[in-house]
């Protein structure tokens, strides 16, 4: 796995002000993990945060989005744990 400086964990829908704030501070070397409501960002075409994107598969499946998703690597809860230990730093939005 490529090194991650800051892992941004986002659980808000794309319209939420904190989601917009998160997207605006991503930097090269960071990664974005979408959980809960935030996986809906992958249903919106225009999402390109410019950093590696991960998404929690159980949350995608709940929302009928697991199949055919592009632009994100799917992880389960174990994979989420690995991301949090692999990253140098976390921000929970």
């Amino acid at each position, binding site marked *: 796995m490529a*090194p991650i400086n800051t892992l941004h*964990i986002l*659980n*808000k*829908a794309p319209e*939420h002000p904190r989601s917009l704030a998160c997207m605006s501070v991503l930097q090269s070397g960071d990664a974005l993990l979408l*959980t*809960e*409501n*935030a996986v809906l960002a992958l249903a919106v075409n225009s999402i390109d945060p410019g950093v590696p994107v991960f998404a*929690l598969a*159980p949350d995608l499946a709940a929302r009928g989005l697991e199949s055919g998703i592009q632009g994100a690597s799917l992880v*389960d*809860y*174990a994979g*989420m*744990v*690995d991301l*949090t*230990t*692999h*990253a*140098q730093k*976390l921000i*929970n*939005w």
Partner: protein
Amino acid sequence: MAADSLHNFTLVITGAPYSSQAPQTALSFARAALAKGHTLDRVFLYGDGVHLASALCAPPSDEPHWPAQWAAFLKDNAVPGVACIASALRRGLVNDAEQKRYELPACNLLEPFMIAGLGEWVEATMASSRVIYFHAGA
């Protein structure tokens, strides 16, 4: 802190059950962390998250009982679960000591959850190598 080694996690839950998904995501994460050999320093409930420690929830029988599931997880794994006292008192969550102190008609804290001050959170942030916050999603 070295990446990819074993970690000691603190989980902070600020979203309430049956209002946000936070307690469910946190529990799934906690189970996965222990399964990988990591440790949990403690779980700290803050803000609306203190409702997770209520002994009086009675959700419909076909919905998960999040307080009961969390309580069982904490007991089984000897992980301390602490609700912030200031958040708890404002929101009507008390143990027997607080019931007496404030002369309230009952107490409703679910064991093994405890009530303590924000110092527990400060200590946890110092003692653990990863602090993860589970907030409400809206």
